[in-house]
């Protein structure tokens, strides 16, 4: 086992915690419709999981992405949001009107929930990429 900064205990604890933190982040995003939570909070929770790995393994963190990858990922989140908004515009409805995702006029609420879930995903991706990028930059990593 890669022991990180020399402690088996720290490495093992991080290994056990990491998947549960990811699961909780996804739960907070998806369950945001029924309980406190949503894209912003879920993105920060994803960042917390990655920071845990960084604290234990430092530069040897196996999942550590490059700065360019994080910038592209942040861009991707904004694009997801924008494209979901554009679907409505292309079907001649107001921007971000999620009722354009269906053709029926009944039970629009369920479809609109999927629209907001989609944009929450976009927000999650952007918030995760940006906050993790800021963490990496503040720690003193330079882009090569």
């Amino acid at each position, binding site marked *: 086992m890669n022991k990180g900064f020399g402690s088996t205990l720290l490495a093992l604890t991080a290994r056990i915690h990491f998947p549960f933190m990811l699961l909780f982040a996804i739960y907070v995003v998806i369950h945001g419709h029924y309980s406190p939570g949503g894209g912003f909070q879920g993105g920060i929770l994803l960042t917390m999981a990655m920071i845990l790995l960084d604290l234990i393994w430092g530069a040897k963190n196996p999942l550590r992405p490059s700065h360019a990858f994080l910038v592209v990922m942040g861009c991707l989140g*904004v694009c997801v949001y924008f494209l979901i908004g554009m679907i409505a515009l292309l079907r001649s409805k107001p921007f971000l009107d999620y009722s354009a995702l269906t053709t029926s006029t009944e039970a629009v609420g369920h479809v609109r929930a999927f629209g907001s879930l989609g944009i929450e995903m976009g927000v999650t991706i952007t918030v995760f990429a940006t906050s993790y990028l800021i963490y990496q930059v503040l720690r003193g990593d330079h882009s090569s």
Partner: protein
Amino acid sequence: MKIAAHLILIVIGCVFFSFVAHIPTLGNVKKVASFHHVSPRYIEKSHEETGAANYVTAVLADYRGFDTFGETIVIFCAGLVALSLLGVKDHE
């Protein structure tokens, strides 16, 4: 100069304390400014219209989706600025 600073502080303090009396008491929804405009609509119709049981999510992601779009872009720009200010090596 010091006297002027103290005077300004006293005036601001008086304004703040006079506002405290007008803060709505806890749980008194009728005194909240937006109660007579959009709040009843969100509370009564948001589940049916947006499919979200949580008012906050309904407002954030659906009714005010354009706002959240702007927020996302602002956060992304903050990351870009942090990268461009701190993430580049100095040219010596």
